[in-house]
């Protein structure tokens, strides 16, 4: 029987309506009191869109996420142009891949990132006291990187100025191995590279070494810091390559390219990165951090001859060993499924995938509690770990500008620098040219950010 309008309320109907009202009220109140989920268990049954590279989330991990959290991950290939289109359309992914060192401040300054502090505050998986300092690359206070709210987190990290070397190539050329506890100087690195390079009929059979950083911009900013200076001014709105410290860094890098001891813009490596060339024994030194151990550990033959060395220093300069990457995830401010996204965020950085990454050797875990999982079963793993642990004492953050992407500055560098690399332009002229074009870009960026 259906109740008619105006009919008196039956007891059963009164109870049903009261229950519904209480449920809605409780939900509304809990919504007021708790804007973010408590973490574990949130978002089950929902779908989270992640814009990442294929290696970041394998199909097996997607299945595992479904099993562990009840959340379906929909992976979208990372593509900056697509990301910008999605952000512009107000329909961004729920989680996005990013490089903490260079993307963090850039996107935060443009107000497209979600402040994750309330989520971290309530999380039992990602505790603030367990976070490695490298995660500060994902903090931005509106002026500088490293302070203020957290906008993302690194999945693992390395000190990207370190380098691996191949003992077989050193033995072949009778060059002494670099020390594993004390850094060599940049000048010694170049001297070694010159002795190690092997050429024939205009072809480079073995590269003496590769040293180009994660990006040219982060490399030069870090090297300038090693020389005792700063590439950026105080408010990160300008670069100055003409200061003695920045010029020293620039001159060293141009010299490295000009000598053609390793891959560069004027002598590209067709592999696009050092891994395959180093693995093939065609590169004596590779400027890669601890993370390259992930690849080295899978090749026992290579593992026996590959050793990790500290980041070089300038003679008499400070020992600076920065992370130039800190790749991880961030959540767009307009993400649709924030609670479910946070649950995946917790799972990705603090649960099964994080443990798997830590034990694989593809970088240092970003939770202190996962350090004990770093691979140390074999001699070569223990040796690399010891060098890395010693290097961590010299870890520092070299802050990056929020007014331009590393890609933008790299593109400008790539246009201006080859003339100097080919010896058609002096380093001083290049420094002035770089100041002009890069500062124009930073000026435009500052106007955009407001």
């Amino acid at each position, binding site marked *: 029987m259906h109740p008619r309008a105006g009919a008196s309320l039956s007891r059963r109907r009164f109870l049903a309506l009261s229950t519904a009202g209480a449920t809605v009220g409780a939900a509304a109140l809990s919504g007021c009191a708790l804007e973010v989920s408590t973490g574990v268990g949130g978002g089950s049954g929902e779908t989270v869109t992640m814009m990442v590279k294929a290696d970041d989330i394998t199909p097996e991990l997607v299945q595992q996420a479904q099993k562990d959290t009840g959340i379906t991950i929909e992976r979208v290939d990372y593509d900056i142009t697509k990301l910008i289109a999605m952000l512009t359309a107000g329909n961004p992914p729920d989680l996005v891949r990013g490089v903490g060192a260079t993307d963090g401040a850039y996107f935060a300054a443009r107000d497209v990132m979600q402040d994750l502090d309330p989520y971290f505050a309530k999380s039992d998986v990602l505790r603030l006291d367990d976070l490695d300092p490298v995660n500060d690359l994902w903090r931005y206070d509106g002026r500088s990187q490293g302070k203020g709210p957290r906008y993302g987190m690194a999945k693992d990290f390395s000190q990207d100025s370190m380098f691996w070397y191949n003992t077989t190539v050193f033995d072949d050329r009778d060059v002494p191995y670099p020390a594993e506890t004390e850094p060599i100087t940049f000048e010694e690195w170049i001297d070694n590279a010159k002795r190690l390079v092997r050429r024939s*009929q205009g072809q480079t059979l073995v590269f003496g070494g590769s040293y180009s950083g994660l*990006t040219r911009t982060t490399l030069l900013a870090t090297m300038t810091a090693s020389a005792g200076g700063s590439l950026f001014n105080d408010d990160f709105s300008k670069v100055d390559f003409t200061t003695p410290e920045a010029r020293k860094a620039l001159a060293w890098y141009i010299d490295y390219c000009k000598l053609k001891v390793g891959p560069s813009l*004027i*002598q590209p490596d067709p592999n696009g990165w050092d891994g395959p060339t180093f693995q093939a024994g065609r590169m004596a030194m590779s400027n890669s951090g601890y993370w390259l151990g992930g690849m080295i550990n899978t090749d026992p033959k290579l593992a026996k001859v590959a050793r990790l060395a500290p980041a070089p220093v300038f003679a008499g300069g400070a020992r600076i060993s920065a992370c130039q990457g800190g790749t991880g995830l961030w959540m767009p401010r307009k993400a649709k499924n924030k609670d479910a996204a946070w649950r995946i965020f917790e799972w990705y950085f603090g649960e099964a995938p994080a443990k798997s990454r830590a034990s694989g050797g593809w970088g240092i875990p970003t939770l202190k509690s996962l350090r004990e999982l770093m691979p140390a079963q074999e001699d070569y793993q223990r040796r690399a770990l010891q060098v890395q642990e010693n290097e961590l004492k010299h870890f520092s953050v070299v802050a990056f500008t929020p007014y331009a992407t590393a890609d*933008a500055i790299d593109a400008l560098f790539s246009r201006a620098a080859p003339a100097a690399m080919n010896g058609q332009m002096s380093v001083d002229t290049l420094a002035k040219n770089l100041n002009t074009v890069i500062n124009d870009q930073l000026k435009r960026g500052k106007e955009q950010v407001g």
Partner: protein
Amino acid sequence: MSVDQISSVADRPRSSADAGRTRPARRPGASMTARRHRAFYVFTSPWIIGFLLLTIAPMGYALWLSFTTFDGISPNWHYVGLGNYRELMNDSVTWDALGRAGLFAVISVPLSIIAGLGLAVLVNRPIRARGVFRTLLYLPAVVPPVGAGIAFKNVFDQNSGAANGALTFFGFDAVGWLADPYARYVLVMTVLWAAGNIMIISLAGLQDVPRELHEAARIDGASAWRTFRSITVPLLSPVLLFQTVTGMIASVQTIMPMLLAPLSTPAGLTTVPQSNYTYMIHVFSQYFALGRYGYASALLWVLFVLILIATGLIFKFTSGVVFYNVDPEAKK
């Protein structure tokens, strides 16, 4: 049943309700014309809608962007009027890139047309396994450009490429093919490698040349070269004009240098050698490496206008030498 009878059946009222209505008198020709118009619009509407949504609307949006400082995500972008256009007029990098694109077009278009036509003449002859040769020569044209780029990068790599392998085998020094100044030659080679496209179109044109004209020339004692020059080429001239125009447009818009670049990041794609830093690489760099959507849109609009002008000039200067079997201006 005669035509008149069919017409009277068609005009008969379908029901008693129709019978009571009075219809305005219609001219028989007008209804047919209206139906034809309607059919024309119905059949062309998918293309027209696509053209409006996917060509005109984006072009309009790009035009609007070209008057702004929009960078994709920043909140404080501004309307700058003709500021971007004024900037590009004084931007030497832009004009150098345009010059390189023009030079590339001037070199690659005639070479690829000559190569394509030459191949077409060869595979038009009655030779054995002609179909196999046609297929083999056309194959490179169907290889995706990304695949072609990777193949060329590997073949011309300084240290491990086959090209230098051959040079060093014969005692020569290796060449840095993918760096300045040789990179431009590799770029032209990638275009010539895919000349099969032009070959197919030229082949179709060759097969359309009336055989009796060749026979008449032969009877008159004309040599093969004279026949080719005085009969084949004039009759192929509309095809050659088409290839010149589309080739010119494609070559100034080429992104092939990017596929030969050492890195695949947005900034990496622009790390092409200076000699291959053409206009579209500059545009890509402004859009996706520097995030200058406004300026890049202005660059594209300028290119669009320049292509229109160049196309008009090609038509103007070739009007006296292109021979049409059918007058293209004739009324149907």
